[in-house]
């Protein structure tokens, strides 16, 4: 079950179980979110405005479910592919073993594709690496902007590529060292920046 659908079913469940004397927290107002997202993605503003009109027309209860489902995918009118499609595209470099999008603050995986590695553990490890470097940079006094970290091991190459828009989220690529080109994998990771929408 995808994260979004779990969130939605969680929302519905909490709505059913809510106590009568408590204020209703179960239907948060997502309209502010949509506005913020619009500001973030100026290119898709016009398209987003159309979508906002569509959601406004729908009945409120349905609208909540729709927005919850739509929010992680930014704006539905956007022609950028879904996270799974981006991950599949990322996995297309030669020698690719595993790719993932990871939240470095928790070490949790937002989406992954491929096999051959314990991706949960590897992602947690990569998060620690990124956080360690950023924390030390803070000690230096200035904010450090990390574009990417390329790690060559004996049998693997790994790429940690924080998203420019949200540096705490990073794309994580693991490839077979004998089969993959580090430069090509790095290029793929940078290319995916424009496609990933969270």
């Amino acid at each position: 079950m995808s994260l979004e659908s779990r969130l939605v079913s969680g929302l519905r469940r909490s709505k059913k179980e809510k106590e009568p004397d408590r204020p209703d927290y179960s239907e948060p107002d997502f309209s502010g979110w949509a506005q913020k997202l619009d500001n973030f993605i100026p290119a898709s503003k016009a398209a987003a405005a159309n979508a906002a009109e569509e959601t406004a027309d729908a009945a409120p209860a349905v609208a909540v479910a729709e927005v919850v489902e739509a929010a992680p995918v930014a704006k539905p009118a956007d022609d950028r592919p879904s996270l799974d499609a981006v991950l599949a595209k990322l996995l297309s470099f030669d020698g690719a073993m595993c790719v993932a999008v990871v939240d470095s603050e928790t070490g949790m995986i937002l989406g992954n594709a491929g096999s051959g590695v314990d991706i949960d553990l590897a992602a947690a490890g990569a998060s620690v690496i990124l956080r360690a470097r950023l924390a030390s940079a803070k000690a230096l006094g200035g904010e450090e902007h990390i574009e990417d970290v390329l790690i060559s091991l004996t049998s693997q190459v790994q790429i940690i590529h924080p998203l420019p828009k949200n540096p705490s989220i990073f794309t994580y690529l693991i490839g077979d060292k004998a089969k993959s080109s580090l430069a090509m994998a790095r290029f793929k990771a940078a290319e995916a920046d424009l496609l990933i929408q969270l």
Partner: protein
Amino acid sequence: MSNVAESLKQLLELSGARSAALVDSSSGMVLSHAGSDAHLEITAAANTEVVRAQLKSLGTLGSDDAIDDILITLSNQYDIVRPLAANPSIFLYLAVDKNKSNLAMARYKVAECERQLEL
């Protein structure tokens, strides 16, 4: 074969090189350095954390891989970290200017320096 100070000086001859150092990741201390970087101590400590985190991650994964090198791209600088094959707790560190250097060449030079290094 060359000694540490000489090797580091050679690394600095690379175009765009800012500073080079040999760092002990078990303590974070700089064993030897060349070039002028006011923040060398702190960047060495930062990279120590990175190497330690990676070693720990490899340990948790039960992998018997070793780290060949770690390249960190910053806004205007590349950091190249390369643990010594003979002693993985000690690493070579080279900072190069992103606009004036060639990452592939810098990486090759560091690998070469690591092979020749005699502690």
